[in-house]
């Protein structure tokens, strides 16, 4: 269970949000909405533990995340604006390195299969810089297929994806939620996700 209590965020001199709280249970998803610059990404980075909240507390399974260290990092999968891909490396090399960084071993055959499932069959050995924006996003999203993290924090996951990929991703997130996972996501697109209890947090200035 992910709990946020009285969170506040300050960027420069501006207070983006304050007194923000929510409770995300197993199988639930949280939509963070708001205008550009309202602090959606800041909130998501806070929830991952990348930046400490200005005030308030974030708890995972009842304990403050700052005190949990690698226990919490194992439980979170964060997909930010950046795809975290190396342009010079192939899709397969990127996938294997990303997995290794998260402590998961994936061999070549498995990697090819996973890339096939995100619609990149035949492009495994192509350096990522030759892929389109949407294909790069798909390589980044392949992490969702091997990760065992129960909490997915996805920042604008649908950006640059075509409609087939959007449906695929909504389906994957739905399956994750029905399996007892949780998801926090921001999106400007209206996307149907079938499963899970939905909550919305709207950030206003």
């Amino acid at each position, binding site marked *: 269970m992910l709990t946020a209590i009285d969170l506040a965020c300050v960027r420069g001199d501006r207070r983006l949000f304050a007194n923000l709280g929510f409770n995300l249970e197993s199988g639930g998803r949280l939509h963070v909405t708001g205008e550009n610059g309202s602090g959606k990404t800041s909130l998501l980075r806070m929830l991952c533990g990348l930046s400490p909240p200005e005030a308030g507390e974030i708890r995972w399974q009842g304990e403050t995340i700052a005190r949990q260290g690698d226990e919490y990092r194992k439980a979170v999968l964060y997909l*930010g604006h*950046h795809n975290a891909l190396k342009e010079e490396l192939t899709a397969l*090399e990127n996938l294997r*390195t990303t997995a290794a960084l*998260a*402590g998961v071993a*994936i061999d070549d055959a498995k990697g090819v299969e996973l890339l096939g499932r995100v619609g990149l069959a035949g492009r495994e050995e192509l350096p990522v810089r030759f892929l389109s924006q949407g294909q790069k996003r798909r390589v980044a999203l392949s992490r969702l297929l091997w990760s065992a993290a129960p909490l997915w924090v996805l920042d604008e996951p649908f950006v640059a994806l075509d409609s087939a990929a959007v449906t695929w991703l909504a389906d994957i997130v739905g399956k994750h939620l029905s399996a*007892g996972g949780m998801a926090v996501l921001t999106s400007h697109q209206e996307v149907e996700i079938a499963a899970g209890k939905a909550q919305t947090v709207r950030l206003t200035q």
Partner: protein
Amino acid sequence: MRNSLAAQLPATSAEAGGLGALSVLAAVIRRDLLLALRRKSEVLTSLFFFVIVVSLFPLGIGPEMALLRIIAPGVLWVAALLAAMLSLQRLFATDYADGTLEQMVLSPAPLGLLVMGKIVAHWLVTGLPLVLIAPLLGLQYDLAPQALGILMLSLLIGTPLLSLIGAIGAALTLGVRGGGVLLSLLTLPLYIPALIFGAGAVEADISGLGAVGHLSLLAALLALSVFFAPWATTASLRIALE
């Protein structure tokens, strides 16, 4: 909850199994070496810089063997410092820009270990070639075979030190505008002990005093920075990402 989830995703996670800390370290080193292999020009820049700077001095000064022998250790070491500086700025900058650094911070493996992997890869790519080519360049300065050996040894101990200290500077100046200049101002003063003991070892050997003392101090500095540099770098990286 986590267990039940893992049980429902057997095809990937359970089969793949977990990785130990050492294999995560190896994965970081392998990735950075692979990247260096694909971006050869960046790697060769600092090596050629070293070769050219060192070779310019004999051409400028002329064939005065006695003078060249005296300035050789200093010139080679200063050139090595500057060559190491050249590649430092990119140590974390590309990872920062493409989001890889965020993923490294969020990795279950300790960040200090991943940083160590990057430092090792940086040394293998930019430090080790300098060590290997230094004796050849030393010949232009009429250094005796034994002095060349000491030069190599001092660089072998000293160049990892340059990568370790440089990593702190690179992490501190991450995301700062005009970071390149700031990085030099920050890092070069920290290189002074390495320069003194490194060049000093070769000078001591040439003058017949024996290089052991200087080399031991250089090795002590290396041991100290192996311990502290990853920690300081990690702290700076976390601040840069906030």
